[in-house]
């Protein structure tokens, strides 16, 4: 098992290293940003079971935070990114504290409402540039040595952050905290009766997910030198849900695959199919939910398990032995 995992990691790093030779680097940067975003979202839905329909609020706010600190305060990129993450984490904490009072679909609605609120506020603030967007964010010099104006340098930064974010998510999920989260997801009343203040754990999970989404948003704003209201819009929140579901919830690779798929689809189809884009994406999305409920990665995982089980001589789960 460990070998396959190491192999996967090596493969992923290698793929990231050679990819810019074949694909337009800035497109990969965008893909990676959304992959981080979807993975961060997965931390909520996939591992905590809470559907947030307002995750764009983290993505967008972090972008604006990075923009303001770098453009107006002259902070270097590393601090700008940190500022983005911090702002997103703070929003995660505040929004989480409110939303956590309800569960399931209500949670989704409340997060949606909070993110709409933030959207409208951003829309009415002078300093965000409203719907004209926040322009002219400098890319700056990382740690005072690496000039990010160079696309490849920027790509390196984003790729490194991507790996780091995936590792962070893996670590969070398997950490002692992750264990408590699993328990809460499995049986919340029981977790309460064991003395866990479940709301606090959920808020922390929401905050962490927000912070990582913020990382994604900040990186994207840095890469594009630009931030817009679209990054706060509920449609983006819907899109990130879609990415996760398409790729496979509760797996590390799923959201990444889902994000790549959706962004590439949008990227390549839009100019070719024009008006039909939303129909096509909708149909693909519906088909996936109805036919491959576990997402690409989940279904492939199941299939591999099945093959392995067949090889190993198991035919089916043991049954009837109760």
């Amino acid at each position, binding site marked *: 098992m460990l070998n396959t995992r190491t192999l996967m990691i090596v493969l992923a790093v290698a793929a990231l290293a050679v990819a810019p030779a074949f694909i337009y680097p800035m497109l990969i940067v965008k893909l990676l940003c959304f992959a981080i975003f979807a993975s961060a979202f997965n931390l909520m839905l996939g591992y905590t079971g809470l559907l947030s329909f307002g995750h764009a609020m983290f993505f967008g706010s972090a972008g604006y935070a990075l923009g303001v600190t770098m453009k107006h305060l002259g902070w270097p990129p590393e601090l700008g990114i940190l500022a983005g993450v911090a702002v997103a984490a703070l929003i995660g904490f505040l929004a989480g504290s409110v939303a956590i009072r309800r569960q399931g679909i209500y949670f989704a609605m409340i997060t949606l409402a909070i993110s709409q609120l933030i959207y409208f506020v951003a829309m009415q603030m002078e300093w965000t540039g409203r719907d004209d967007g926040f322009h002219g964010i400098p890319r700056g010099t990382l740690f005072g040595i690496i000039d990010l104006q160079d696309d490849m340098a920027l790509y390196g930064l984003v790729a490194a952050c991507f790996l780091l974010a995936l590792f962070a998510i893996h*670590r*969070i999920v*398997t*950490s*002692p*905290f*992750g*264990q*408590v989260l*699993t*328990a809460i997801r*499995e*049986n919340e*009343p*029981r*977790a*309460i*009766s*064991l*003395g*866990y*203040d*479940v709301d606090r*754990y959920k808020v*922390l999970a929401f905050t*962490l997910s927000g912070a990582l989404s913020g990382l994604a948003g900040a990186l994207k704003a840095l890469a594009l030198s630009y931030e817009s209201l679209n990054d706060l819009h509920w449609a983006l929140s819907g899109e990130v849900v879609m990415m996760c579901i398409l790729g496979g919830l509760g797996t590390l690779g799923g959201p990444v695959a889902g994000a790549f798929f959706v962004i590439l689809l949008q990227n390549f189809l839009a100019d070719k199919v024009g008006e039909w884009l939303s129909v096509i994406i909708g149909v693909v999305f519906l088909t996936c939910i109805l036919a491959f409920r576990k997402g690409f990665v989940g279904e492939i995982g199941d299939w591999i398990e099945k093959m392995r089980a067949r090889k190993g001589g198991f035919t089916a789960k043991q049954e009837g032995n*109760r």
Partner: protein
Amino acid sequence: MTHILETVGLCKEFRGFRAVDDVSLRVREGDIHALIGPNGAGKTTVFNLLTKFLSPSAGRIVFDGRDITREKPAALARQGMVRSFQISATFPHLTVLENVRVALQRRHAPTYAFWLPGSVLSRLDARAMDLLEQVDMQDFAQTKAADLPYGRKRSVEIATTLAMEPRLMLLDEPTQGMGHEDVERVTQLIKRVSAGRTILMVEHNMKVVAGICDRISVLQRGALLAEGTYAEVSADPRVLEAYMGSETELEGAH
């Protein structure tokens, strides 16, 4: 004799309907104390009040000398008052060992540490196995809780509850829905784990009550009807009429 748990004039109204009416209950430290009574007498409601899943309309609850009327449920569990559920409550997709470990983790390992690897929890394994042995579940340590037979789930639940090192355990119908064999096992288990702690339980099975309970309180229509040892209570004609019925051979009911 000290009382570990005391309620003073506890009341609970649901939109005008008094489910619990001025109940002053006293549970002595170290006892197995049973709460019995006809259906709808308010037993589960009392439990819910004690464990803060409901808040009382009036009255006070004192646990170990401290007023806990306004405490949050999780905080109460941390002080040693732990409830096990009427419906079997495990974490179905965790293994038996992990089930117990989650309970141990709260006291003995980090719980918010999202930056640590999961392997730090393995230092709880020995202790968890220890608890599993107490309920005779060591052989099932790696089984998923969902795959266990019903009675065994109860055992896991009790082991999990024990991991909390409770001073007072609240058991709501621990044998409900169990076959005879399991009833027997769980009864013995309760007896065994009662050493060094107090147990308050709701139970309809008179055999269990008669077998292991030191004291019994009888509720009826939300109010306390009688209290005493099994012999005292079962001799009370009001209890016979309201609860046990005409059959003198009590076990006959179950």
